[in-house]
């Protein structure tokens, strides 16, 4: 018999599903829940966006124009010379 799941269960299953998307089909209980719950439907899309934005945000910051100060570089050169 098909078990009806709660929003709490559904959102947890969505996280797990995202990790296995390529290898596992969606559990029927989750599929059914998403058919009638608009809030979990939104969560399903938003949780994917959050993961994408986290990666994009880090990539953008890694490509910024921030630079080490000359003093920091000097400290590093000194530490390398002392350790070398």
């Amino acid at each position, binding site marked *: 018999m098909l078990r009806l799941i709660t929003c709490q269960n559904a959102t947890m299953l969505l996280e797990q599903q995202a990790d296995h998307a390529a290898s596992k089909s969606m559990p029927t209980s989750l599929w059914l829940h998403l058919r009638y719950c608009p809030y979990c439907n939104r969560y399903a899309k938003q949780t994917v966006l959050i993961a994408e934005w986290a990666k994009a945000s880090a990539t953008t910051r890694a490509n910024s124009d921030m630079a080490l100060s000359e003093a920091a570089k*000097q400290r590093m050169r000194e530490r390398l010379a002392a350790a070398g």
Partner: protein
Amino acid sequence: MTPSTPVPAQWPDRYGDELYRFALSRVSDSETAEELVQETFLSALDGLATFRAEASERTWLFIILRRKIIDHYRRQARTTRVGLDEISEGGPTEADFFNPENGHWAAQQTPVSWLNADAALEQQELHEILARCQERLPPQQGAVFAMRFVEELSAEEICQELGLSSANYWVIIHRAKLQLRRCLEKHGLGKN
């Protein structure tokens, strides 16, 4: 092509800025980012004998830095290492988002539409808000979230690195996502 020989004295000038930006994209403060770069250079110096000339010196340094960043996350996660029953000490729990009686969304927590979410905020603004929301996560959740979605380690790798059970890992990921979603809404998403 002549194989290149690493010249440690030149590393800060040749690779320092790029490594620093990468570290700064993963940790929240410039001092920690600088320390990670410094540790990277010292570890590289220690392991100079393992450097293979056919590899790029730059790539080799980035591999070492990435390992340092994962070690940083591990330390961050372990400052608040707790058992499954105690995770609630690290921030809001499911009871803050779902009605404990029926497991459905609590009244004030129902997700609102993020229609045109990308257009609602400038991309840079969105990234800044997300970074601030990530910083507000309890340390263990912040570390697990970053390892999974920024470093893109698998769930198995993260559990192994942090000594977490699979059940514990999923609770942490779930709570981190619930809090980030709420934080993003609070700071502008969903108001378009």
